């Protein structure tokens, strides 16, 4: 069992990565990656929600009636997301104001529903929890890479701080902080990762 869990964990981070392999959860990838700080909070929220929703769905999997399973999953996900939103409002009010409606939109992140449907409904609680965390980490590092480059090129800052020797002469690329910049950054990242890091298993190309 630990071997299977480990493989699942590595797959979610590598070849089955939710963002660059399955291309899920793209709306938040576009929306929150123009500033690194917001992205980190968003990623933590998604990891927490994924882990908790996978665990809960897995614990209830033998009792959930098949006809309403998606309603139940959405309800569980929504409850955790609202909790994340309230906790951020209470503990990180500045970031909560910047993220605005995006935290609530974690509910519609397809990765969370996808993992609940594809994995948690058919597996034991512990592997499901690990799968949720792995999918969250897989999502997060892709977002962080994109956010790093978007903030660097779009605002000439990292974590809101100017970079000595760079910020003074760099002309900000406004397109990088707008949604099209996220498309370009994501497409380039997928291209680089698929070319150099993930061997194409479909073959023939």
């Amino acid at each position, binding site marked *: 069992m630990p071997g299977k869990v480990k493989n699942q964990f590595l797959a979610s981070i590598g070849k089955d990565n939710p963002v660059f392999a399955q291309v899920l959860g793209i709306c938040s990838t576009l929306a929150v990656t123009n500033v690194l700080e917001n992205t980190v909070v968003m990623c933590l929220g998604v990891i927490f929600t994924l882990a908790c929703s996978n665990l809960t769905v897995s614990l209830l999997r033998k009792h959930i009636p098949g006809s309403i399973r998606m*309603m*139940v999953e959405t*309800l569980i996900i929504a409850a955790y997301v609202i*909790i994340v939103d309230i906790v951020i409002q209470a503990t990180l*009010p500045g970031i909560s104001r910047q993220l*605005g409606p995006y935290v609530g939109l974690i509910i519609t992140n397809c990765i969370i529903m996808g993992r609940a449907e594809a994995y948690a409904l058919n597996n034991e609680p512990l592997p499901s929890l690990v799968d949720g965390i792995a999918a969250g980490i897989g999502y997060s590092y892709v977002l962080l890479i994109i956010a790093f480059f*978007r903030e660097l090129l779009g605002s000439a800052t990292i974590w809101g701080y100017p970079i000595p020797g760079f910020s003074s002469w760099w002309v900000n690329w406004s397109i990088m902080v707008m949604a099209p910049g996220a498309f370009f950054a994501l497409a380039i990242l997928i291209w680089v990762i698929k070319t150099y890091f993930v061997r194409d298993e479909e073959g023939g190309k």
Partner: protein
Amino acid sequence: MKPELIKEKVAPVLFMAGVTFVAITLVGLVDIVTKPAVERNKTLFQKQAVCDAAGVERPGSTEALIAWYDAHVTALTNSEGTVSYRVAEPEGESTLVLVQQGPGLWGSITAYVGFNGEAMTIAGVTFQDHVETPGLGARIDESWFRNQFVGKSGPFARLGPEPQDKTKGTRDPDAFDQITGATITSTAVKDIMNKSIQQARSLTASR
């Protein structure tokens, strides 16, 4: 009732009701536990906004901010229910802080604009609530943008380009530098500022 009917129709409804009850209870509990902190953050933001708009250097700690606020600020409500603040200065002068709302790109922007005593020059501006695009319109929170209004008295008719060197913006009394890529937000700020200036002038004229 047939057993299949119970299994297919009644059980799912009961199950859904049960899960909903548990989820609501959980969310409700977290809400109750965090409510005091959320409320405290809200009032702190409002106090910070008044402090920034009055052009006063923000006290270092939360306690110092509350103490400063309690000692210097009076909230005023007019007959229409609009709240403004009078901030007393040590020299006997006072600053009027108006709360003004206007439409931004994605939602309304709430600005706190401070006006110095008799001269009616702008003492400070801060944008308390907005949902502008992070990295673009949301840059109205940056200090160079807010500080360029200080000392001017408006009204503003023109917007200048965003300066590369933030210390060398436009000095024209009827203009301010906008944010590149955020024309709608910058224009919304111009309208909010002009509305505040008009309101402040009519308030002093009626006194």
